[in-house]
């Protein structure tokens, strides 16, 4: 059991990181902290995916002239997925912060519960 945990330390670290991020996303009431948590959780998933795709001792799949032996390279698909995922989380975070700025200018607070309570007082 302990040996498994040690040899799969990528997965273990990514699960711990994911837990930290997810807890911050769900439990923190501060909107900025929530989205920091979200980014930590996303990064943990990327780490998990990257470690799935990595094969010890192989090179990045950049094919130069000559060698075309697939066994020399790591699996490029997870890396491609991670790149896409990073782009997505950047754009989502940017959009979220635009919304947070709008809400802060209106209510002068970052506390989500307060924002919801104040917004429900407004007329629909």
């Amino acid at each position, binding site marked *: 059991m302990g040996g498994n945990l040690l040899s799969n330390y990528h997965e273990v670290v990514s699960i711990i990181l994911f837990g930290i991020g997810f807890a911050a996303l769900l439990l923190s009431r501060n909107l900025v902290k929530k989205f920091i948590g979200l980014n930590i*959780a996303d990064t943990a998933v990327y780490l998990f995916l990257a470690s799935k795709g990595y094969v010890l001792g192989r090179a990045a799949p950049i094919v130069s002239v000559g060698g075309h032996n697939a066994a020399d390279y790591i699996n490029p698909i997870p890396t491609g997925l991670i790149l896409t995922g990073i782009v997505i989380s950047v754009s989502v975070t940017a959009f*979220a912060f635009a919304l947070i700025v709008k809400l802060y200018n209106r209510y002068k607070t970052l506390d989500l519960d307060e924002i919801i309570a104040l917004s429900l007082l407004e007329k629909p």
Partner: protein
Amino acid sequence: MQNFPFISIFLPILCAVACMPLRAQASKHITYGCHIALTLLSAAVLAFTLRTGESFTYAMGHFPAPFGNEIRAGALEAFMALLFCLVSLLSIAGGQRDIFRELEENRINVFLLMMNMLTSALLVMVYTNDLFTAYIFIEIITISACYIVAARPGGRPAAASIVYLIMSLVGSCLILISIALLYGVTGHLLMPGLRQSVRALAASGDYRVPLFVLTGLMTAGLAIKTALFPFHSWLPNAHASATTAASAVLSGLIIKCYLFLLIKLAFRTYGLDVIGELQIANLMLVFGALGIIYGSLMARRQRDIKQMLSYSSVAQIGFISVAIGLNTEAGMAAACFHIAAHAVGKAMLFVAASGLSAASGNAKDFDALRGAARRDPLSGAAFIIGGLAISGIPPFFGFFSKMYLTFAAVDTPIAGIVIFLAVVVSTVLSAMYYFPAILCILEKSDKVPEDHIEKGASSLAYRAAVGAFIAASLFLGFFSRLVISVIEKGLAVFG
């Protein structure tokens, strides 16, 4: 013909980009043109797939199967695409007045941009044969859906939008982990490859726990995004505080496309027997039934017409998920029929509610809406048809989706009882909130706010949209046999 699905995905993206530098009117014309073209394209695909009776696969960039990504179109996908494009077009036309009245002038083109992106993403969810493409477009839906909620000025839409955003991101986080695990145990992202590996794993019993966990995570992620009962909390505020076109598209289409993806996963990658073994179907059944009860009871308590319609969506999502939880082909057909029926019905109700409230000084609570159907008969008729149809009164579509579901449930003893109860309870409960609403708008009202009635409410676009909505919902009711036979033909080549 083979590349029509691809064109219909790519065209709205181009139109969305074109909306960026343009003014409101020009982007409105582009959006209409794009949606009309999409409707025609989808109709052509539907006619083609019905004639050939098979589904075809189109490899993007013509890379062979294990690389690249694919889209696949059969009769069911084409029918859903046609429906989604049509409802989207009609929602924009019906909500046009509110878009121009409620939104700031310089926001309108971005709003229409996001509507185009949503249509594109919906079509991807319908056509894609690749799990990661689905994930990317789920995120595109997240951003555009949150934007169209927040586009309406004021604090409430912005607050509702950020809650929606957070919940959606929790959902997509779960979906991403699930995809990572799935790739880890199978090594595939394309659905045909996934199917082979997943079924081999399920048969051999290897990786039992990861398979169970990842399927649960995927279902939970999609359930959060589709607002299935315990995860519904974001829905009512987000859908009620958006502008009319946004509410109609969000409630009618966006929350359905995840369920469609779930049906696709169940059919195409797992197979119904494996889904049943993993107990996912039973979870859908139980939470769907709870959602029906909760959504209906909450809908009854609302004084605001849009809040009521939003809670009604929670109940109807429960109904669809009960149908999926039956886990048979007939159940899936009933679910698809109800997806179609509720897409038309709920979008029509939201558009009609905007007309009714325009005839009552833009108020949205039932006290002010008293007698609104007398002031605006067309919207009133649409609201009444929609309300009766969703409650399940024959000869409208809601009755037929309940009928097909009950027929589908006859063979399965325990699930059948749950479904029978769900059908009865949902009929009674939805009648409990739609009938008072209908009576309220029909009531003779002594105070007639003549000066409040906005003549612009009955623009040509609005009347055409409401007329088309009524026609579509009557079609779904009177020709339900035809629709269900198209769905069954599609399901036969879906897996």
